């Protein structure tokens, strides 16, 4: 959509305010960002996140970083299969 073809509404104008380069409550924001990524955020935290996420550069970058680390832990780290010898020992011991 080409924004220049439409007359921006007041709301759109408000949203065009310059993005924040510094977050004055970043520690609190970090807690919310982690709760969001862990799927543990409250409804109020989710609302706050949705309304403010695209307005603050440090928070956007933190979200990207936290998500990237979480995904790396989840998908990149090798998961080893349990050695067969352990299974065999457990089964033989509980059957004896």
């Amino acid at each position: 959509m080409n924004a220049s073809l439409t007359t921006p509404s007041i709301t759109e104008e408000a949203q065009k305010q310059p993005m924040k380069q510094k977050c004055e409550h970043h520690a609190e924001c970090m807690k919310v960002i982690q709760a969001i990524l862990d799927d543990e955020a409250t409804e109020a935290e989710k609302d706050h996140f949705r309304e403010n996420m695209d307005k603050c550069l440090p928070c956007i970058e933190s979200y990207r970083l936290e998500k990237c680390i979480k995904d790396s832990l989840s998908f990149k780290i090798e998961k080893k299969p349990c050695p067969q010898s352990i299974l065999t020992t457990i089964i033989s011991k509980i059957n004896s």
Partner: protein
Amino acid sequence: MLVAMSETITTNEYTDDLRYEVFNREFMPHIDSMYNFAFRLTMDEDDANDLVQDTYLKAFRFISSFEQGTNAKAWLFRILKNSFINDYRKKSKEPSKVDYQEVETTYNSEEASDTTYTVDLRADAVQELIGDEVANALNALPVDFRTVIILCDIEGFTYEEMAKILDIPIGTVRSRLHRARNLLKEKLKSYASSMGYDS
């Protein structure tokens, strides 16, 4: 070791057949996750083998305190974690005295560190890291911090499940996880710098 299950002791009646059936159906599917958890706690293959075996034998012995329909994986992880603390941590190759001190210091300064803490690390730099580098950064954390990250980010437990596994309040789960992630970022930053990913 029964302390591990003190909250969940009930009077479930299990016939012999049912004991084996529940063991196979509810417990055995988690053995790979249990093995990986044990390995990441002990950092030693032999200890991990013993820890998994001990945990499963305890789980079988005390199966009547497991309530069917509840979260078997969390129940098993809790037994494993307690066995690790009681039986393995003392002989662990980690410098546990340093760990305790570091944990205590960081917990005490938790609020102060929260307000000022930032690590100069970019998502792009993390994306460049391979699995072994991420694993090494995780393994370099003191065990209590390593544990919360394993439970949350690798195994996908909820905060409530983690609180039960670790016998700590949910608020402590949140704050320990927050602190653990900050420490992990420092380790990842070192890796990224040494690889030249952050320049």
